């Protein structure tokens, strides 16, 4: 049973990690929390459903999955860029609170727009790829869980490659180090920031589709809870740190599942448990597990 629970936690954690990466990428460069990120995730799920209904072969399958993921990721990535351009860029020189409020505003606008114009009901989301139950002898796992887990891992690997090996990744790392100096060194800061939002949004879009497939339904407010959890995961791992976001996501997923799986009446207490651990970690390491202490700038 422990291994089954661990696997449940890893799958849940992989979705949290994907979302947490979006928070952490933006924070790493702009030092702001993009509260609209959870709504980008929700929009991604809706676009994914639309893409499936309009474009994909009704039988589903791998082609459909790749298609749905690509369309949702593109749409969410572009949405990320638009949000940055309209709501954050004009406020970049403003006090730090201003873009934060702007982000909350965007979040409310997006969820209400979907609520009013798309649907205010629970819509069922297809599994896209037919599901099988795979028996490993001592435990049974669903192919959907494996699919979600590995899709997330692949996306994280792609992100890692992009940040570490490409020129744009190098520029992103430079901007994360020092935005002003990077600009002085000839890096097109606006382009790098827009690219960061594109990547973060695309990951959120993928997470939205995976979330929809996993739970079989989507709704205008579906982003809120995973958004809060992923933000927590990012803080737990050390916000601004990419490895930290992944670690935090998996840790949070596993903690929740273990709380629900082993504590009596744990299912209703799992969120409390997860947040108690967060507070505990922050008391000991205020910058998160992998977060570095930011040197005082004089």
């Amino acid at each position, binding site marked *: 049973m422990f291994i089954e*629970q661990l696997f449940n936690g890893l799958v849940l954690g992989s979705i949290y990690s994907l979302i947490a990466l979006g928070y952490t990428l933006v924070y790493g460069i702009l030092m702001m929390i993009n509260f609209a990120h959870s709504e980008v995730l929700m929009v991604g799920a809706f676009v994914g459903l639309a893409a499936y209904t309009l474009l994909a072969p009704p039988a589903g399958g791998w082609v459909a999955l790749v298609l749905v993921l690509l369309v949702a990721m593109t749409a969410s990535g572009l949405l990320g860029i638009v949000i940055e351009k309209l709501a954050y860029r004009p406020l970049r020189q403003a006090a730090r609170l201003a873009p934060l409020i702007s982000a909350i505003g965007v979040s409310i606008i997006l969820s209400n727009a979907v609520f009013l114009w798309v649907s205010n009901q629970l819509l069922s989301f297809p599994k896209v790829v037919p599901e099988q139950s795979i028996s490993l002898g001592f435990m*049974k796992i*669903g192919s959907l869980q494996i699919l979600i887990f590995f899709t997330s891992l692949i996306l994280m690997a792609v992100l890692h490659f992009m940040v570490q090996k490409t020129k744009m990744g190098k520029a992103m790392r430079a901007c994360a180090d020092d935005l002003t100096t990077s600009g002085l060194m000839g890096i097109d800061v606006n382009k790098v920031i827009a690219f960061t939002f594109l990547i973060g949004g695309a990951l959120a879009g993928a997470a939205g589709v995976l979330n929809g497939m996993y*739970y*079989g*339904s989507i709704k205008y407010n579906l982003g809120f809870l995973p958004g809060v959890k992923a933000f927590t995961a990012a803080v737990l791992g050390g916000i601004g740190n990419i490895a930290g976001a992944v670690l935090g996501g998996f840790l949070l997923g596993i903690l929740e599942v273990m709380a629900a799986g082993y504590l009596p*009446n*744990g*299912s209703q207490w799992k*969120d409390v448990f997860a947040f108690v651990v967060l507070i505990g970690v922050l008391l000991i390491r205020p910058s998160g597990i992998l977060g570095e202490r930011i040197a005082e700038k004089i």
Partner: protein
Amino acid sequence: MYKLKSRLLLGLAMTLVSGCAQKSASVRVAVAVPLTGDIGTEGQGVRRAVELAIEEANQSGRFPYLVEVRAFDDRADPKEAVSVANLIVSDPNIVAVIGHYNSGCSIPASQVYARAGIPMISPASTNPKLTAQQLEEGWLGPRSIFRVVPTDDVQGTYAADFVTDKLKFKNFAVLHDKTPYGQGLAEQFRERFAKRGGQILAFEGIASGDRDFKALLTRLKSLNPQGVFFGGLYPECALLIRQAKEIGLPATFFSGDGSKTNELLKIAGPAAEGAYLSITGIPVEHLPSAKTFLEKYNQKYPGATVKPFDHFGYEATNIALDIISRVGPDRTKFIDELKKIRYQGILGTTEFDAKGDTKNKIITMTKVKNGEFAIVN
């Protein structure tokens, strides 16, 4: 001054709620159900049925004035239900309330109605406390709360007897969503099943709105229950059934009327096969007396599906209209009349007991077969 204030409030209520122009002073019936959110589809159905009944009444020429419907959205949220109730009691033209849907909304809202002396007939709330609270000391108004659906003690007990007698199940895990409806239903089931000699392996709450139950279900799997009973609504029930299948929990699922919707079949998919869902009353498509209702409903709302509580909403409205046609738009006389009514309608004969519950207590058990609900009793 009082008059001015009430006019202002009325004006405010009208603008807020409808925004449409008024003909003349008329008699109003309020329908207060969730119109948006997860349960919005169900509430919309009830609203359609109520509007159908009112439209028929106006066309029949039984009334010397126009009877109007005012629809209010409580969003299945108890806080919202209370503010909606306050809006309703501030409209002096509203004679009766058809609502609310969720027990968790009906109970707090009913206290507002009772204080204002407005009769309320719930078409869907099944928690026994809704009507039982009126007999408690300190009840602030007349006994004005009624319902046309059988209660959870009937439903939970029925389900427990069904699994003991028909299916010979020996043990169960019982889950609920901690709402007055879900927990009430689950507790009634647990009590009766234990009394009949069954073994309860687990009794646990889940958070309403949660979407991941795999950890809990994996734990249940190690207890190896024959059946799982869930007291709650379809969004969580569908996910429980679906995720149980995914992790390979072989138990048979049981739930009540709050989960028996087509949305459950869509979200749970093939995993729902073999699940049992009890409902209050007889499904409308199996009620011979409801045939004309269905025809008119489909004629007025082409493309809309009839939801599980629509015929209860229709019946409740017709009862209200019957009384208004006899005693006029007077809340006090309405309540007195409602206590002694013996109404013959699409549900059969409706009479209310001393608490205000219908004496017509039929429960139907359905089982999911080939993606549809089939009646098994």
